[in-house]
């Protein structure tokens, strides 16, 4: 680490926080364009209904109303596209019904957009939206996935028989069945992975603008990946070529996956801006967010684990129903398949794995990736069934895992579910977690709690994730309709300051700090001389954006590759200036030196020479110092770790208190430990939130009961313990930084640790499982039922 430049490994305070803490962030909703109008969206109050008529005559006459748009105004355009194709076992492509921008004759979930009212003020638009008269004929709602398949009350889409989108499988079922037939013990668990609402602090917002002088569109939007939106909306929905469409996502207040996707509102404001010749802004309110942002998770799963008499895993057999909601969101089909079933080896040498996934349409908000995306569901499945197996086999939870770990010498390790893990040391993170959590001292703490009338439990979870979603060739073979690489440009300005243009988007991750540290380290330049520029298709060459913990592993590597090109060119310039061979020039701590001599020249002088090429090898190289790299990785990265949770339960009320949560992670090399710890803390809050508090609940009619914070339990600071975290490091083998990614781990590893701890605490009542969220009512019910 180079201390003088705040390089790799330094706990540099987040440079972006000054503006956030001061309230000077620039979010989309902060923008006010000249002649701006405001859109309010008329949304369906029904889960499933036919639209008989829309009467907007009264609304049109209300004060300030400029325009009202319905589906007929969007007939020229495509539907909202899906970015991933999954094929069924029989080879058929998934059923991919049209997702219209505005409902065409039918609404399929509460919140489905029907009409857009545009007015001079937001209040006028809202008032007039209330006055749009829509006549519906209600249809039966499809809510429960099991019912949707087995006994469908209705068809969400006419072309999806029994509401199945696809019926996919991985693994050889006959081989797995044979392993089960010969097993000494089989553990079985049925459970639901609860549906959650993402709840980014900043609700979504979009402004469309159209320049009548040249036909250029600009979309300002709260996106994690503006280039992807430009591609999806420009190419597939509105047929606007890239050079006529700028997508800009400035400061974005959190995403957690929910701002990856292309949403109808983005197309609505873009189209409306051209229709009106005025900018059109739409800002979601919180309840609108609950009924229009893609939800997460929502799997119903049966998992079976076959073991020999020593607790060695022989086979894993799983069956999952995955809720797609009413339409296919951008990444939805890949979440329960390629981001879930391919992770089912976990940290273990399970030789045979079979997983069947049926994706199901229901009359609910679309479901897509949410922090962890498929990997939390896989980890929860494995770590719950293994914990139950340990209990049944009377093995210590750590011991049964240890007996099945992939060992350091096994890497690279080919799992039976397609992935090849490059490196890891699972014993190291397990040992660290057990030590830090004083696993061996638990009995005394349990006894002390009992003396206070409390039930104390301890739970372990060992997770793995596949991050840095890539390489393109692999994801393409798995159905991705895009490449998954990243791009970066390093622009060294004439005086030696550096602009880093990155395709990764920062919406809470701290890239403006972390990426600058990487460049500072590599170029030996002070961090203050380095700016990270992101979020604007007009400024950034290209980008696939931020999700799947890919920013440092993929985006960071693209930056490193571009800096490598800068250094290579700089060496040629320096060699010319020092009258040496470029092969003899080395670059260290910001200085170009001729090896074995005292000749040296600093980075800034080389930069200036590149832009003032009076003495310059123009016959060999061009002036200027700007380089671009596209990086497409060789493999996923595989962060892993062990989490230990301790809880105390009040048996009278069922209240669960999380007493401690320890995370031992292996993220490979770490750029900024403070930011990594913050990422883990945030992930833990969301993971504990899912385990104890959060659930998006629909009633039988498809009404979302949890459409405000009065009913949706967001985690709060006082729900959380003080976290302890540590890091073990095995460096990723296939990127130059040795990094793996850390953004989702906390949300992946913690839910099963919490539930395992609760089940452990309730052991004396014979409770084998409790569904997430483990609310006081459910925990009390489990105790109460056992007592009676």
């Amino acid at each position, binding site marked *: 680490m180079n201390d003088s430049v705040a390089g790799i490994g330094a706990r540099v305070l987040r440079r972006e926080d000054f503006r956030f803490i001061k309230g000077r962030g620039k979010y989309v909703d902060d923008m006010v364009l000249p002649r701006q109008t405001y859109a309010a969206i008329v949304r369906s109050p029904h889960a499933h209904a036919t639209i008989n008529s829309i009467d907007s005559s009264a609304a049109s006459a209300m004060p300030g109303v400029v325009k009202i748009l319905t589906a007929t105004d969007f007939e020229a355009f495509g539907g909202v596209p899906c970015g991933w194709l999954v094929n069924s076992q029989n080879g058929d492509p998934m059923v991919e019904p049209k997702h219209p921008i505005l409902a065409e004759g039918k609404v399929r979930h509460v919140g489905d957009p029907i009409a857009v009212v545009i007015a001079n003020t937001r*209040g006028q638009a*809202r*008032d007039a939206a*209330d006055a749009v008269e829509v006549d519906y004929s209600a249809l039966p709602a499809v809510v429960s996935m099991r019912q949707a398949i087995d006994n469908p009350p209705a068809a969400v889409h006419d072309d999806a028989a029994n509401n199945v989108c696809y019926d996919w499988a991985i693994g050889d079922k006959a081989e797995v069945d044979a392993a089960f037939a010969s097993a000494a013990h089989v553990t079985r668990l049925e459970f639901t992975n609860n549906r959650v609402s993402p709840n980014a602090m900043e609700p979504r917002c979009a402004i469309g603008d159209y320049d009548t002088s040249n036909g250029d569109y600009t979309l300002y939007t709260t996106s994690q990946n503006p280039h992807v939106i430009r591609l999806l909306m420009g190419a597939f929905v509105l047929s606007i070529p890239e050079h006529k469409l700028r997508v800009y996502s400035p400061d974005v207040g959190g995403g957690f996956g929910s701002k990856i996707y292309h949403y109808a509102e983005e197309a609505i404001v873009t189209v409306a801006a051209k229709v009106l010749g005025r900018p059109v802004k739409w800002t979601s309110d919180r*309840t609108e967010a609950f009924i229009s942002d893609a939800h997460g998770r929502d799997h119903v799963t049966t998992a079976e684990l076959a073991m020999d008499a020593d607790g060695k895993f022989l086979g894993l057999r799983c069956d999952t129903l995955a809720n797609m909601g009413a339409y296919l969101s951008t990444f939805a089909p890949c979440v329960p398949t390629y981001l879930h079933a391919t992770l089912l080896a976990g940290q273990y040498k399970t030789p045979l794995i079979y997983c069947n996934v049926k994706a199901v349409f229901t009359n609910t908000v679309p479901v897509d990736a949410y922090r962890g995306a498929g990997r939390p569901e896989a980890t929860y499945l494995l770590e719950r069934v293994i914990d139950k197996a340990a209990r049944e086999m009377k093995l210590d939870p750590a011991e049964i895992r240890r007996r099945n770990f992939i060992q350091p010498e096994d890497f690279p390790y080919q799992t039976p579910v397609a992935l090849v893990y490059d490196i890891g040391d699972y014993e190291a993170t397990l040992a660290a977690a057990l030590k830090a959590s004083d696993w061996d001292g638990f009995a005394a703490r349990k006894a002390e709690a009992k003396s206070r009338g409390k039930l104390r439990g301890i739970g372990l979870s060992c997770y793995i994730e596949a991050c840095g979603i890539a390489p393109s060739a692999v994801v393409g073979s798995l159905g991705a309709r895009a490449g998954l690489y990243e791009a970066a440009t390093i622009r060294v300005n004439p005086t030696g300051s550096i602009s880093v243009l990155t395709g990764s988007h920062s919406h809470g991750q701290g890239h403006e700090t972390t990426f600058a540290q990487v460049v500072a380290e590599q170029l030996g330049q002070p961090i203050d001389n380095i700016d990270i520029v992101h979020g604007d298709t007009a400024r950034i060459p290209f980008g696939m954006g931020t999700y799947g913990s890919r920013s440092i592993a993929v985006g960071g590597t693209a930056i490193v590759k571009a800096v490598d090109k800068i250094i290579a060119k700089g060496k040629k310039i320096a060699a010319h200036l020092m009258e040496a061979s470029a092969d003899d020039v080395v670059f260290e701590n910001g200085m170009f030196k001729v090896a074995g001599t005292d000749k040296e020249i600093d980075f800034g002088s080389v930069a200036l020479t590149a832009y003032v090429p009076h003495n310059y090898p123009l016959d060999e190289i061009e002036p200027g110092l700007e380089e671009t790299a596209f990086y497409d990785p060789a493999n996923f990265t595989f962060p892993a770790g062990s989490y230990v949770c301790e809880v105390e339960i009040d048996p*009278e*009320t*069922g209240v669960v208190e999380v007493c401690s949560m320890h995370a031992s992670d292996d993220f490979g090399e770490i750029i900024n430990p403070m930011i990594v710890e913050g990422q883990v803390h945030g992930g833990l809050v969301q993971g504990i939130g899912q385990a104890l*508090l959060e659930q998006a*609940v629909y009633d039988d009619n498809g009404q979302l*009961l*949890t459409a*405000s*914070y*009065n*009913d*949706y*339990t*967001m985690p709060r600071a006082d729900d959380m313990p003080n976290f302890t975290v540590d890091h073990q490091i095995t460096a990723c083998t296939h990127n130059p930084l040795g990094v793996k990614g850390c953004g989702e781990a906390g949300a992946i590893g913690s839910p099963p640790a919490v539930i395992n701890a609760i089940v452990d605490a309730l052991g004396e009542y014979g409770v084998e499982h409790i569904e997430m969220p483990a*609310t*006081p*009512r459910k925990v*009390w*019910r489990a105790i*109460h039922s056992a007592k009676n």
Partner: protein
Amino acid sequence: MQSFNYVKPASLADAAAALSGADDGTVLAGGQTLLPTMKARLAAPSDVVDLGGIAELKGISVSGGTVTIGAMTRHADVAGSADVKGAIPALAALAGGIGDQAVRNRGTMGGSVANNDPAADYPAAVLGLGATVKTTSREIAADDFFTGMFETALAEGEIVTSISFPQPEKAAYAKFPNPASRYAMVGVFVAKTASGVRVAVTGAGNGGVFRVPAYEAALSANFSPDAIADGVVSAADMNSDLHADAEYRAHLVGVMARRAVAAAAG
């Protein structure tokens, strides 16, 4: 929020006039329920009459074993009042546990009691302490004031002006908060007075705040947690929602009552 007329009278008479002259007028106290409801477009009054300018509605006084609190006194003022803490510490503690700091800095006792949200805290204290609600036209005993969910004995245009609480020998409030809203899912106020014990429950009942005569009798004989048990309150009378079914709420009434008694006795 839809458009409305806003008036801020300086006297109760002007407030009454403003209300009677309005199409669909409503009184604004602290606004902690009304304003979010209006913002969500669930209420759209034609006129909002803000009581914040009426000085006589604010303040706390203690005399002759009675604590009198003006209707527009904020929760934070009750929670922080040395007079209330000295006379009825359970009431100050209850006020300090309402909502969050921002709510306590705006919300008022009169607003809470007049709204009679079935999950609000103050109704439990008013009923549990046997308080008297004073209005622009009369005095109403707590037992007659709360008539059902969001329903009170207040007539059209009648405004709560103050509430008088007799000082008990001992009292405590135990609340089980709703995990999401942090309103009372079950809140039990227990007061031991010279004339016996009163037990009032908020959050749980499907008719709003209610008393538990069986507990009151048992505790009047023996003021100890052991004197009361589960099963006294019928699940049939309890609310049921996604956070707590009726049986769980009925059970929690017993748990919270015992905890309130233990806190009061301790």
